[in-house]
């Protein structure tokens, strides 16, 4: 029971946790960049803020999409068990929603000035 419980908890909450970590990371980094005025520094011609947001988004998306795929595979394995099937499909859907939120959160850096 403990492993089933752990699996369900991780499946349902891992993607939102990654989304939250990504959101906080880029929000805090941007706030510090503007407060301490290092928003103008660049590396390889690209600003530090776009760098950090781009990398954070890539890492977070890799995780959430992997989780989504794993949940979908899990769902295929548990066709007979209603509850397990439900939990896996729900986890996959949550992973998808979190991926969308992570992706949308990265768009602003392409359009608006950072500290403005």
């Amino acid at each position, binding site marked *: 029971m403990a492993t089933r419980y752990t699996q369900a908890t991780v499946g*349902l909450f891992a993607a939102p946790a990654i989304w939250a970590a990504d959101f906080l990371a880029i*929000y805090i980094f941007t*706030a510090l960049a503007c407060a301490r005025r290092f928003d103008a520094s660049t590396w390889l011609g690209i600003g530090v803020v776009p760098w950090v947001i781009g990398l954070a988004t890539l890492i977070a998306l890799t995780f959430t999409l992997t989780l989504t795929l794993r949940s979908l595979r899990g769902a295929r394995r548990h066709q007979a068990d*209603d509850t397990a099937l439900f939990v896996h499909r*729900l986890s996959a859907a949550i992973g998808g929603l979190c991926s969308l939120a992570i992706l*949308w959160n990265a768009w602003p850096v392409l359009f608006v000035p950072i*500290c403005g």
Partner: protein
Amino acid sequence: MTASTEPKMEYPNPLPRPEEELPLLEKIWNPPSGWSFITVVNNEYVGLFYVGAAFLFFLLAGVLALIMRTQLAVPENDLVSQGLYNQLFTMHGTVMMFLFAVPAMEALSVLLLPNMQAARDLPFPRLSAYAFWAYFVGGLIFFCSIFFDLAPSGGWFMYPPLTSHEYSPGHGADFWLLGIGFIEISAIAGAIEIVIGVLLTRAPGMSLDKMPIYCWSMLVFAGMVILAFPAVIVATALLELERSFHWPFFIAAKGGDPLLWQHLFWIFGHPDVYIMFLPAAGLVSMMVPAMAQKPLVGYRLIVLALIGTGFLSFALWVHHMYATGIPQLSLSFFNAASMAVTVPSAIQIFAWIATFAAGRLQFKTPTLFILAFLFVFVIGGLSGVMVAVVPFDWQAHDTYFIVAHLHYVVFGGMVFPLFATFYYWIPYVSEKPLSERLGRWVCGLIFIGFNLTFFPMHITGLLGMPRRVYTYPAGMGWEGLNLTSTVGAYLIAAGVLVFLVDLARNFRPFTPKKAGNVWNAGTLEWLPAGEYAARSIPIVTSREPLWDQPNLARDVEAGRYYLPGAPTGRRETIITSPIDARPLYILQMPGASWPTVLAAFGTAVFFLLLTVKLVVPALFAGVFTIAMAICWMWSTDPGPSHPPIDIGGGIKLPVYVTGPMSHSWWAMVVLIVVSLSQLGCLLFAYFFLWTVSPEVWPVGGAALPVADYPFAAVLLLVLSSCAMAYASRALRAARSWPVRFSLLSAIPLLVAAFGVELYAHWQSGLRPTDSSYAAAVYTFIATQGFFVAVVAVMGLYTLARSLCGLLNGRRRATFDNTMLFWHYTVFQGLAMLAVVHVFPRLLE
């Protein structure tokens, strides 16, 4: 969908049932009579009191709104003064948000949740009674402040510096801070109970995929309360510290920042909108299938929507702060997150429409309110997308456009479903249903009145009328729109009045004869029930058991399912596993008690006295409250008082478990999550203030106490935790005196660690009024001091139980809970020491 043709099953318990079984069950669950009736803890009674109290606050805050609308009917009106008007809108917002909306949702769950899961009661019945009485008494006192011109007038959002001691002297703001802070604590208590109730007290077989949507929505609701409410409690504590002791968190001249309040307030405040809406959406998802006589389409997508909204709503707080000068990119993150949270709401709306199409809707009053809700809420959602767009909000923010939007969302998303709920579930508690004829009038008047009041406000706002103005000049083009809004407000009032008439004529609660399942609904709360809820606890095999399991009601009532009596002679329910709902053990629950109610009164009086700065009487009230709480707790760890019980079907369940199997252990874990959220908010405050005012931080650690102090404190903390761990081992080995000795030594170790940290900063010359940095450091210390005091009381209580022979290797739930919280307190102390002593040393 689950097929309705289950294989022929054996019933867990044979018929006929022994004759004495039912009278005993009734005797055990009967509420007390006479004066003691107010000590009742049965969820149906407490739930109805609770819903009634919340509705009373809705009416009171509604009257305030009518006075405001009358004042604004014409320009330059002088019906009320600016002072009274500012109190009116502050109280209207505060009462609606804190005393009506959130409590109403918790109240409904006390009333409905256990029965939907065929549990006999919520897992902590005395806690719900306490939460209700504390809220009711505290809320009434708070509301009455307006009759004495003592009400707060800083707006329901209480932005400092307007609410600081300098700009709001007097007790008004203190009423708000202490009153609301304390009602939030009651809300958190309720939320903990809901989490445990949903996860552990479902009917056998009601696995996660068969749980009623309402239970899902309350689970998410409770999770959000647990994570969001600590933010507002921290915020109110900081502002009260600034008001009373001049600790400068929000004073710019001393390194504070008014924006800190806004962050903390909206980290709570935005989720709060969804905290009100999600339970209402859950109720709608229960009513729609019943009214359409078809299962909900897209069950899993709706669960996704509930959970998704729960998470995403925490990333929206800054969209109340678009005009504050926060960096443009930061604002845009919140614009994007606001888009993401729209998707789950859209999912729910289309799921309801799909269910309409799949079934055939009966146009009864609940249906009408649901259609009205859809109409209004869709408009509110669309205007929500508009105000989430940063540039548009620069115009719309703090105008009547927002007043319109928020009422479309909150009144639309919560009050319309609430009226639907009243019409739908009153047959569940009353002898007669409400009147269909009057119900149509109620719905029509409120719907037309609502749109007449609030739709024009969109335009008024775009025409430039700001919110929270007690009057406005003529000739701005606002007159006609305002007059229309006022007329609409009176129509809403007329609708509510007709509803009250309907209640007076038809609502007959507290009766054994219920109108019952008049809608032919499919969920378990419609099972025939007595004071003990369902006679026997059924095995659930589908989402709508009453539709899919033939004769279920008859068999449940006959006692053919689990636990048809009260084998231990006390109130009991079955604890089941969180995912699959397999029976785990029998929970013995406490009944009515005076100390619970007295503790609630004591708490309310304590906060009231504190508000008016009568500190010594307040201390007496506090001690009285703690004494009552201890009286109430004393009987709640019964131990393995009874051998395992056969609940039927060959299942033998223990009546007592400890550790990670136990519901009380889980409740403690949830309380630790609450504490972690509180710790997170304090850390946020510390780092936020550093970001704003690095000049008041001891850069490089030069001004910090020497490192010996924190090292000593760390050592003491760790030793204290070790003492508890040792006590735990000794308890397992059934050696009483080592347990007592290490319990007794763990307390001074913890107190000493706190003392060392306090002394270290005090001797270094730092005073909390010096700067925002100093205030933040002393806030850590004060918080830790509060936790140490709580844990010390818990330790002494555990010791007392050991001395009375109520603690041993098997009967140890009290000890386990104390130990868990002890370790958390030590962890919190270590985390705070690390931040205070290490972080500044890293700066250059």
